[in-house]
């Protein structure tokens, strides 16, 4: 099974190796110092600048920006679309993973590669790909430009691999004996799936869904061409940030950005806790 270009099952994790870890020596200490300086310049300081800019005007300015009807509508649309896409992915992603692992037919390997395509494509190209079939002068007569359906479809496209690729390896590792045990205890195939297989997939489905949700909330590139960016109707959070920035309202952009940042942090920390808990359950 290839998990090409796909999100790994949760963030990279460091377990303590049996031989180490060692104390820092002078050389490795300097290396760590340089690494941290670069990481700060590239990532930490700029992100701190976002939080700083959002906080600069005080709480009332921050809250004022977010409760502005137009901004609020964009945030609500973003969350609603992300939730819908996440629910659909949790179900369909699991089904796709199931078929890829358990079924066997000609062309299955090809299908496995198809899963990775949305992730390998640049986001702007992903948008263009959908528009070529479902855009203006669509050969199937179905134009999604400037509709909420279009946003939904774009998000569905770019988040396709998350649940599939987190569930697939777990499904592969489920012992056949557990299913045989359930069968000899009288459980039908459906009951076995519901009571034995599905519960062991829940952590993976949760992890994949969280990653997908975070991606859907923050998606930008694939929506640029599709969402018409109409206030109250098809404007999403990331495009709202761009609009603020183009209007030279950096505080407004930062306020929305802080929210997106918060979602990202919550998801990452949540996954860290989840993966540790699963590791403990064995």
């Amino acid at each position, binding site marked *: 099974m290839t998990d090409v270009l796909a999100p790994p099952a949760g963030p990279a994790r460091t377990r303590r190796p049996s031989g180490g*870890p060692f104390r*820092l020596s002078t050389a*490795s200490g300097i290396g760590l110092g340089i690494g941290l300086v*670069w990481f700060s310049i590239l990532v930490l300081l700029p992100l701190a600048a976002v939080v700083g800019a959002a906080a600069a005007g005080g709480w009332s300015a921050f809250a004022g920006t977010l409760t502005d009807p137009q901004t609020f509508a964009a945030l609500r649309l973003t969350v609603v679309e992300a939730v819908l896409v996440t629910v659909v992915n949790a179900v369909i992603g699991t089904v796709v993973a199931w078929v890829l692992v358990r079924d066997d037919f000609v062309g299955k390997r090809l299908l496995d590669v198809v899963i990775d395509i949305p992730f390998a494509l640049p*986001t702007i190209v992903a948008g263009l790909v959908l528009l070529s*079939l479902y855009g203006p002068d669509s050969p199937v007569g179905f134009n999604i430009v400037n509709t909420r359906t279009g946003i939904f479809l774009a998000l569905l496209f770019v988040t396709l691999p998350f649940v599939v690729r987190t569930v697939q390896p777990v499904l592969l590792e489920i012992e056949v004996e557990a299913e045989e045990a359930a069968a000899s205890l009288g459980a039908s195939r459906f009951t076995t799936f519901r009571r034995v297989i599905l519960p062991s997939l829940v952590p993976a489905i949760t992890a994949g869904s969280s990653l997908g949700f975070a991606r859907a909330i923050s998606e930008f590139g694939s929506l640029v061409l599709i969402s018409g960016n109409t206030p109250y109707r098809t404007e999403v959070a990331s495009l709202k940030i761009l609009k603020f920035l183009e209007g030279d309202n950096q505080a407004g952009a930062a306020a929305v950005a802080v929210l997106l940042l918060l979602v*990202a942090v919550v998801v990452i920390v949540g996954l860290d806790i989840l993966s540790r808990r699963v590791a403990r359950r064995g």
Partner: protein
Amino acid sequence: MAEVKEIRQHKSAVTYLLRFFVIGYLFVLVVWPLSEVVQRTFAPVEPDAAGGFGAFLERLQDPSVTYAFGLTITCAFWAVLINTVFGLGISLLLVRYDFPGRRILSVLIDLPMSVSPVVVGLALVLAYSSGSGWFGEGLESVGIFIIGSTPGMVMATAFVSLPLVIREIIPVLEEIGTDSELAASSLGANAWQTFRRITLPSIKWALAYGVVLSLARSLGEFGAVKIVSPGAEFRGETATLLIQNRYTNYDESSAYAAAFVLVLAAVLALVVVTFIRRPEDRT
């Protein structure tokens, strides 16, 4: 015995229903639209646009298009180089050494992948733009301009692909453990020799995998670059920005031509990555 257990071989109507559904879903969502892109690249629907492979190549040879791809490659090259060096160093430190804040750092390292590209761009602007950034004025006084120039675009590209190398190397480093490294140093190898002759050979496939992933991600970066780049023709317009600009300016055929090249690059990356995975699977 290696045969598939009977309990999993059983095929019912549900099996075929699910199979049919999954194939249909992936076809409608991915395969069909993708084939339509290929179609439009070589047979544009615009009334006055020429079709065929020759016309496709001609569009790519337009100076503004070659400039855009050149800039994309420049940004990707530097971003991948920086991420590889940084990723190798940080991975070794995180796995092999203990220091305060180690776990926080390992969680923070993942952050760039989950942050919206727009937020990345905004963050870099708020930190380094000469007009309003925290460090903008200081940098301007020594003649360094980051936002609106290539260094800013390299930083934006490096930011979004930062964890890719690290994510691939860390699990392998953990798996190989420290035994052979300790053995090598007990035989008199210095730190550099140990790294080059013991550690590097065992992580080379993971490293290659991470590099290809970073490269693919860097070539396709759009959102973060869009915000820190001036984004005009011959001035900071990368391939992805060009696609957006041409599409919105009713030059669809150029947009599709450039997009097709990026699709090819993505597929190539997929293929390369599959081949890199192979030798690893065999062990």
